[in-house]
Protein backbone atom coordinates (compact mmCIF):
# COMPACT_ATOMS: atom_id res chain seq x y z
CA UNK A 1 0.00 0.00 0.00
CA UNK A 2 1.29 3.39 -0.99
CA UNK A 3 1.45 5.53 2.16
CA UNK A 4 1.50 8.75 0.11
CA UNK A 5 -2.03 8.17 -1.26
CA UNK A 6 -4.96 9.35 0.83
CA UNK A 7 -7.22 6.62 2.23
CA UNK A 8 -10.40 8.53 1.31
CA UNK A 9 -10.95 9.38 -2.32
CA UNK A 10 -11.73 13.04 -3.01
CA UNK A 11 -15.38 13.80 -3.75
CA UNK A 12 -16.09 13.97 -7.49
CA UNK A 13 -16.53 17.47 -8.82
CA UNK A 14 -20.15 17.91 -9.87
CA UNK A 15 -22.77 20.66 -9.95
CA UNK A 16 -25.25 18.30 -8.30
CA UNK A 17 -24.49 17.77 -4.60
CA UNK A 18 -24.00 14.15 -3.57
CA UNK A 19 -25.63 14.58 -0.18
CA UNK A 20 -29.40 14.05 -0.32
CA UNK A 21 -29.88 16.20 2.79
CA UNK A 22 -28.12 19.06 0.99
CA UNK A 23 -30.26 18.52 -2.10
CA UNK A 24 -33.46 18.58 0.00
CA UNK A 25 -32.28 21.71 1.82
CA UNK A 26 -31.50 23.47 -1.46
CA UNK A 27 -34.88 22.41 -2.87
CA UNK A 28 -36.68 23.86 0.16
CA UNK A 29 -34.58 27.04 -0.05
CA UNK A 30 -35.58 27.47 -3.71
CA UNK A 31 -39.26 26.54 -3.35
CA UNK A 32 -40.12 27.90 0.06
CA UNK A 33 -37.74 30.55 1.40
CA UNK A 34 -38.53 31.57 4.96
CA UNK A 35 -39.84 35.00 3.93
CA UNK A 36 -42.47 33.22 1.79
CA UNK A 37 -43.32 30.77 4.58
CA UNK A 38 -43.81 33.52 7.19
CA UNK A 39 -44.45 36.75 5.27
CA UNK A 40 -45.00 40.01 7.15
CA UNK A 41 -46.47 41.85 4.17
CA UNK A 42 -48.99 40.93 1.48
CA UNK A 43 -49.80 42.42 -1.94
CA UNK A 44 -52.25 45.35 -1.88
CA UNK A 45 -55.11 43.31 -3.43
CA UNK A 46 -55.13 40.99 -0.40
CA UNK A 47 -56.73 43.88 1.51
CA UNK A 48 -60.27 42.44 1.38
CA UNK A 49 -62.38 40.53 3.87
CA UNK A 50 -62.76 37.76 1.28
CA UNK A 51 -59.18 36.69 2.06
CA UNK A 52 -60.06 36.31 5.74
CA UNK A 53 -62.41 33.35 5.16
CA UNK A 54 -59.54 30.87 4.79
CA UNK A 55 -57.84 31.82 8.03
CA UNK A 56 -61.16 31.79 9.91
CA UNK A 57 -61.63 28.24 8.63
CA UNK A 58 -58.23 27.33 10.09
CA UNK A 59 -59.15 28.98 13.41
CA UNK A 60 -62.38 26.96 13.52
CA UNK A 61 -60.41 23.79 12.74
CA UNK A 62 -58.11 24.53 15.69
CA UNK A 63 -61.13 24.73 18.00
CA UNK A 64 -62.54 21.53 16.49
CA UNK A 65 -59.29 19.71 17.23
CA UNK A 66 -58.87 21.10 20.77
CA UNK A 67 -62.46 20.34 21.79
CA UNK A 68 -62.28 16.94 20.07
CA UNK A 69 -59.14 15.96 21.99
CA UNK A 70 -60.86 16.87 25.28
CA UNK A 71 -64.00 14.89 24.32
CA UNK A 72 -62.02 11.81 23.31
CA UNK A 73 -60.03 11.96 26.54
CA UNK A 74 -63.07 12.31 28.83
CA UNK A 75 -65.53 9.99 27.07
CA UNK A 76 -69.25 9.81 26.18
CA UNK A 77 -70.73 9.76 29.71
CA UNK A 78 -68.87 12.97 30.54
CA UNK A 79 -69.95 14.79 27.36
CA UNK A 80 -73.60 13.73 27.86
CA UNK A 81 -74.07 13.95 31.63
CA UNK A 82 -71.91 16.79 33.00
CA UNK A 83 -72.37 20.50 32.40
CA UNK A 84 -68.76 21.04 31.37
CA UNK A 85 -68.96 17.96 29.13
CA UNK A 86 -72.06 19.29 27.38
CA UNK A 87 -70.27 22.63 26.96
CA UNK A 88 -67.32 20.94 25.21
CA UNK A 89 -69.75 18.83 23.17
CA UNK A 90 -71.45 22.04 22.01
CA UNK A 91 -68.07 23.72 21.44
CA UNK A 92 -67.09 20.81 19.18
CA UNK A 93 -70.40 20.90 17.32
CA UNK A 94 -70.55 24.67 16.75
CA UNK A 95 -66.89 25.00 15.78
CA UNK A 96 -67.56 22.34 13.13
CA UNK A 97 -70.51 24.42 11.89
CA UNK A 98 -68.23 27.47 11.62
CA UNK A 99 -65.52 25.34 9.96
CA UNK A 100 -67.92 24.28 7.22
CA UNK A 101 -69.56 27.69 6.80
CA UNK A 102 -66.24 29.48 6.37
CA UNK A 103 -64.76 26.69 4.25
CA UNK A 104 -67.66 27.12 1.81
CA UNK A 105 -67.28 30.93 1.88
CA UNK A 106 -63.54 30.44 1.16
CA UNK A 107 -64.54 28.09 -1.69
CA UNK A 108 -66.91 30.71 -3.16
CA UNK A 109 -64.21 33.38 -2.95
CA UNK A 110 -61.59 31.19 -4.61
CA UNK A 111 -64.05 30.04 -7.27
CA UNK A 112 -64.98 33.57 -8.34
CA UNK A 113 -61.34 34.75 -8.35
CA UNK A 114 -60.32 31.53 -10.22
CA UNK A 115 -57.78 30.70 -7.53
CA UNK A 116 -56.37 27.77 -9.56
CA UNK A 117 -54.60 30.05 -12.07
CA UNK A 118 -50.80 30.26 -12.63
CA UNK A 119 -49.86 26.80 -11.43
CA UNK A 120 -52.17 26.67 -8.44
CA UNK A 121 -54.33 23.76 -9.69
CA UNK A 122 -52.86 21.34 -7.14
CA UNK A 123 -53.64 23.77 -4.32
CA UNK A 124 -57.25 23.98 -5.54
CA UNK A 125 -57.58 20.19 -5.88
CA UNK A 126 -56.15 19.57 -2.40
CA UNK A 127 -58.81 21.99 -1.13
CA UNK A 128 -61.46 19.90 -2.88
CA UNK A 129 -60.10 16.73 -1.25
CA UNK A 130 -60.08 18.45 2.18
CA UNK A 131 -63.73 19.36 1.65
CA UNK A 132 -64.59 15.73 0.82
CA UNK A 133 -62.70 14.25 3.78
CA UNK A 134 -64.25 16.88 6.07
CA UNK A 135 -67.75 15.75 5.05
CA UNK A 136 -66.78 12.14 5.83
CA UNK A 137 -65.32 13.25 9.18
CA UNK A 138 -68.49 15.13 10.09
CA UNK A 139 -70.62 12.14 9.09
CA UNK A 140 -68.63 9.74 11.28
CA UNK A 141 -68.89 12.36 14.04
CA UNK A 142 -72.69 12.22 13.92
CA UNK A 143 -72.36 8.42 14.22
CA UNK A 144 -70.02 8.74 17.23
CA UNK A 145 -72.31 10.78 19.47
CA UNK A 146 -73.45 7.75 21.51
CA UNK A 147 -77.11 8.79 21.58
CA UNK A 148 -80.37 7.97 19.79
CA UNK A 149 -79.58 10.46 17.02
CA UNK A 150 -76.44 8.48 16.17
CA UNK A 151 -78.40 5.21 16.12
CA UNK A 152 -81.12 6.72 13.93
CA UNK A 153 -78.56 8.09 11.46
CA UNK A 154 -76.62 4.81 11.37
CA UNK A 155 -79.73 2.69 10.81
CA UNK A 156 -80.88 4.88 7.93
CA UNK A 157 -77.43 5.42 6.41
CA UNK A 158 -76.59 1.70 6.24
CA UNK A 159 -78.99 1.22 3.34
CA UNK A 160 -77.33 4.03 1.37
CA UNK A 161 -73.89 2.55 2.05
CA UNK A 162 -75.03 -0.95 1.05
CA UNK A 163 -76.75 0.48 -2.03
CA UNK A 164 -73.46 2.14 -2.99
CA UNK A 165 -71.66 -1.19 -2.52
CA UNK A 166 -69.34 -0.01 0.26
CA UNK A 167 -71.25 -1.31 3.28
CA UNK A 168 -68.82 -4.19 3.78
CA UNK A 169 -65.85 -1.83 4.09
CA UNK A 170 -67.57 1.17 5.68
CA UNK A 171 -70.07 -0.30 8.15
CA UNK A 172 -71.96 2.57 9.78
CA UNK A 173 -73.43 0.16 12.35
CA UNK A 174 -69.91 -0.65 13.57
CA UNK A 175 -69.36 2.00 16.22
CA UNK A 176 -65.70 1.11 16.77
CA UNK A 177 -64.92 1.57 13.09
CA UNK A 178 -66.80 4.88 12.85
CA UNK A 179 -65.29 6.24 16.09
CA UNK A 180 -61.78 5.19 15.09
CA UNK A 181 -62.14 6.86 11.71
CA UNK A 182 -63.58 9.98 13.33
CA UNK A 183 -60.98 10.54 16.03
CA UNK A 184 -57.88 9.21 14.27
CA UNK A 185 -57.54 8.62 10.54
CA UNK A 186 -59.85 11.28 9.12
CA UNK A 187 -58.70 14.18 11.37
CA UNK A 188 -55.07 13.31 10.60
CA UNK A 189 -55.96 13.37 6.90
CA UNK A 190 -57.71 16.75 7.15
CA UNK A 191 -54.97 18.33 9.26
CA UNK A 192 -52.14 17.01 7.07
CA UNK A 193 -53.80 18.21 3.87
CA UNK A 194 -54.60 21.61 5.41
CA UNK A 195 -50.88 22.02 6.23
CA UNK A 196 -49.94 21.02 2.66
CA UNK A 197 -52.60 23.43 1.33
CA UNK A 198 -51.20 26.33 3.38
CA UNK A 199 -47.58 25.56 2.41
CA UNK A 200 -48.58 25.52 -1.27
CA UNK A 201 -50.33 28.88 -0.87
CA UNK A 202 -47.16 30.23 0.76
CA UNK A 203 -44.95 28.88 -2.02
CA UNK A 204 -46.81 30.63 -4.85
CA UNK A 205 -48.38 33.54 -3.00
CA UNK A 206 -51.99 34.67 -3.35
CA UNK A 207 -53.31 34.64 -6.92
CA UNK A 208 -53.56 38.04 -8.60
CA UNK A 209 -57.02 39.44 -9.35
CA UNK A 210 -58.29 38.52 -12.83
CA UNK A 211 -58.17 42.15 -14.03
CA UNK A 212 -54.44 42.21 -13.19
CA UNK A 213 -53.75 39.39 -15.73
CA UNK A 214 -50.80 39.99 -18.00
CA UNK A 215 -48.75 41.41 -15.19
CA UNK A 216 -46.00 39.33 -13.63
CA UNK A 217 -47.12 36.56 -11.30
Amino acid at each position, binding site marked *: MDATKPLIAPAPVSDKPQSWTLRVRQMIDRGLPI*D*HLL*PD*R*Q*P*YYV*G*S*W*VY*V*FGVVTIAALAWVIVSGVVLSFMGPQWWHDSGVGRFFNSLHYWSVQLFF*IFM*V*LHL*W*GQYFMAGWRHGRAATWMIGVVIFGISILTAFTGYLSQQNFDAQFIALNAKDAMNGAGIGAFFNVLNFGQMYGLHVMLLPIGVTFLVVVHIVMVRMR*GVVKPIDAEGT*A*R
Partner: protein
Amino acid sequence: MDSPATYLHWGFILISVPNLLVIAGMLVLFAVALVAPFPHGAEADDGRH
Protein backbone atom coordinates in the same frame (compact mmCIF):
# COMPACT_ATOMS: atom_id res chain seq x y z
CA MET B 1 -85.32 22.61 20.12
CA ASP B 2 -86.38 18.97 20.17
CA SER B 3 -89.26 19.42 17.76
CA PRO B 4 -88.72 18.71 14.04
CA ALA B 5 -87.77 21.66 11.86
CA THR B 6 -90.30 23.38 9.60
CA TYR B 7 -89.73 22.52 5.95
CA LEU B 8 -90.41 24.68 2.92
CA HIS B 9 -91.44 22.98 -0.31
CA TRP B 10 -91.45 24.48 -3.80
CA GLY B 11 -91.72 21.91 -6.56
CA PHE B 12 -88.64 19.69 -6.33
CA ILE B 13 -86.96 21.96 -3.75
CA LEU B 14 -87.36 20.81 -0.16
CA ILE B 15 -85.36 22.59 2.54
CA SER B 16 -85.67 23.17 6.27
CA VAL B 17 -86.01 26.73 7.52
CA PRO B 18 -82.81 26.49 9.65
CA ASN B 19 -80.77 25.33 6.63
CA LEU B 20 -82.28 28.08 4.47
CA LEU B 21 -81.38 30.68 7.11
CA VAL B 22 -77.77 29.44 7.27
CA ILE B 23 -77.42 29.65 3.47
CA ALA B 24 -79.02 33.12 3.43
CA GLY B 25 -76.65 34.25 6.19
CA MET B 26 -73.65 32.93 4.24
CA LEU B 27 -74.74 34.82 1.11
CA VAL B 28 -75.13 38.03 3.15
CA LEU B 29 -71.72 37.54 4.79
CA PHE B 30 -70.09 36.94 1.40
CA ALA B 31 -71.67 40.09 -0.05
CA VAL B 32 -70.62 42.16 2.98
CA ALA B 33 -67.03 40.81 2.70
CA LEU B 34 -66.89 42.04 -0.91
CA VAL B 35 -67.98 45.61 -0.18
CA ALA B 36 -66.94 46.30 3.43
CA PRO B 37 -63.78 48.44 3.67
CA PHE B 38 -60.73 46.54 4.87
CA PRO B 39 -58.41 48.34 7.31
CA HIS B 40 -55.02 48.83 5.64
CA GLY B 41 -51.70 49.19 7.37
CA ALA B 42 -49.49 52.25 7.10
CA GLU B 43 -48.10 51.14 3.75
CA ALA B 44 -49.23 48.74 1.07
CA ASP B 45 -47.06 46.44 -0.99
CA ASP B 46 -47.71 45.65 -4.63
CA GLY B 47 -45.16 42.86 -4.89
CA ARG B 48 -45.51 39.14 -4.37
CA HIS B 49 -44.75 37.85 -0.93
